[in-house]
């Protein structure tokens, strides 16, 4: 690990001033940052420790029925907050399906948004990577790329965004609150992450010094709490990133879907909101043919970026499965294996 200057500001304005300098990076829990630094993938000259900034660790109810989540709230605390988990069950399930209990106890919600791709060529400093070194090329294109993007990728980069948490967040219209050198602003999470295009090194709208201070969910997002699920296929049952995942939230009245939300994970450089699918679902009855149509619409623009054609059909099936589970109703309690499509009963059928 390259050495760095360490500063621990106690006000947001001091933090922004310290982090606006070239080569500076914010440190919260560091569960991704330190990993990248140990691997020599990044080498910040200065770490600005934000863990002592006041007021960023609160979960606050808003007058409109929504919720404001401070950027330093730990993943586990948010997932286990009873009021939050009841109102936004798919978000709680997504959080609990990610990483391990130890990492969830440390990792913050702000950091989750800013975690870097797990593309092996990004991590391997001996490989060419346009994200790590603009213009260097992309060794993933002709490499082991079965887990790479099938939506929104470019010739320059086929990496995916690894977050589970962001998938239901983007489905439910989460907003990111940012403080920066010129004051505060807010951005819809859907617009926060960038697709790679010719500049895969630019991953979000953040400018130097910008600090995520909170996430906000609108009150309307609670209307989906009775029919909301997150499902995630992994290469092992627990403690693995998504091969592909989906968050589905439905508002069902009198046997008809009045409103639908659908977002996909593990398939693009950003959490992928599937609006064409939502349009098909709204006004329809929740049945398998409609779900299959919605899945086809969601993957309409998908194309393999390498040896990953299977992910397109896998994603369609996960969408159908997630919509089916959401239509059946949010479980009383998050399952023992959060977001797993597999039964937790040993020896049972996988779809029991």
């Amino acid at each position, binding site marked *: 690990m390259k*050495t760095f200057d*360490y500063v621990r500001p106690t006000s947001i304005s001091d933090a922004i001033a310290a982090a606006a300098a070239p080569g500076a990076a914010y440190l919260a829990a*560091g*569960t991704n940052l*330190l990993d990248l630094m*140990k691997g020599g993938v990044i080498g910040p000259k200065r770490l600005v420790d934000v863990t002592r900034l006041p007021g960023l660790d609160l979960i606050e109810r808003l007058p409109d029925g929504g919720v404001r989540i401070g950027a330093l709230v730990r993943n586990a605390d948010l997932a286990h907050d009873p009021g939050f988990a009841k109102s936004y069950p798919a978000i709680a399930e997504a959080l609990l399906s990610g990483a391990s*209990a*130890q*990492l969830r*106890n440390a990792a913050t919600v702000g950091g989750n948004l800013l975690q870097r791709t797990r593309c092996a060529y990004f991590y391997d400093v001996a490989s060419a990577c346009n994200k790590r070194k603009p213009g260097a090329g992309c060794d993933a294109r002709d490499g082991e790329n079965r887990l790479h993007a099938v939506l929104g990728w470019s010739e320059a980069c086929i990496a995916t965004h690894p977050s589970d948490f962001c998938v239901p967040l983007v489905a439910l219209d989460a907003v990111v609150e940012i403080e920066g050198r010129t004051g505060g602003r807010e951005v819809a999470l859907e617009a926060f992450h960038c697709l790679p295009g010719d500049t895969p090194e630019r991953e979000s709208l953040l400018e130097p010094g910008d600090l995520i201070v909170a996430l906000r969910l609108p009150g309307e997002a609670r209307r989906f709490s009775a029919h909301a699920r997150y499902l995630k296929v992994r290469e092992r049952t627990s403690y693995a990133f998504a091969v592909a995942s989906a968050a589905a939230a439905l508002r069902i009245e009198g046997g008809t879907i009045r409103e639908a939300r659908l977002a996909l994970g593990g398939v693009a450089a950003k959490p992928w909101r599937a609006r064409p699918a939502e349009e098909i679902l709204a006004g329809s009855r929740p049945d398998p043919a409609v779900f299959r149509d919605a899945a086809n619409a969601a993957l309409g623009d998908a194309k393999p970026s390498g040896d990953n054609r299977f992910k397109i059909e896998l994603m369609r099936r996960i969408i159908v499965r997630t919509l089916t589970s959401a239509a059946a109703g949010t479980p009383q309690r998050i399952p023992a294996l959060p977001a797993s499509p597999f039964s937790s009963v040993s020896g049972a059928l996988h779809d029991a």
Partner: protein
Amino acid sequence: MNLPISLTVNGVRRNIELADPRVTLLDLLRERLQLTGTKKGCDRGQCGACTVLVNGRRINSCMALAVSHDGADVTTIEGVARGNELHPVQAAFVAHDGLQCGFCTPGQIMSAIGLINEGQAGDDPERVREGMSGNLCRCGAYAGITDAVLDAQQSLVQKSLAQKSLAQSDQRRTA
């Protein structure tokens, strides 16, 4: 750069001068405080061998910068027994053969203590397995580990119930 920090480690206040900001909590425990019970496995947050409790919560000490944890209360495997009396989780690992080579065991035990404190898994073996998935055991002692955690969970629940009823009968006596 000289960075003075203060930690409470297993109940003892320690004032430490860090000459380098790169020191992880894991390296501080092992190299500066000679608390080598906490193990360095992958050093990348993947294996759980370095699990300790910070302010009562289990975390990977390899992925924590020591300087950022100034003021924290840290519990390691060295701090869980009372004299010669093993912690109930330690005793359960012995009783259920929850180990073979033993390298991952301090992390497993600290993680299990954290899991039981969190109160989410209860007596459901599947929830225990899921809650312990951040701790790898290359010997494959998982069956014994799960049994040990379930057993310890039960004995700790019974202990706390017994304490509660004792406190209630004390209350009745004084009432």
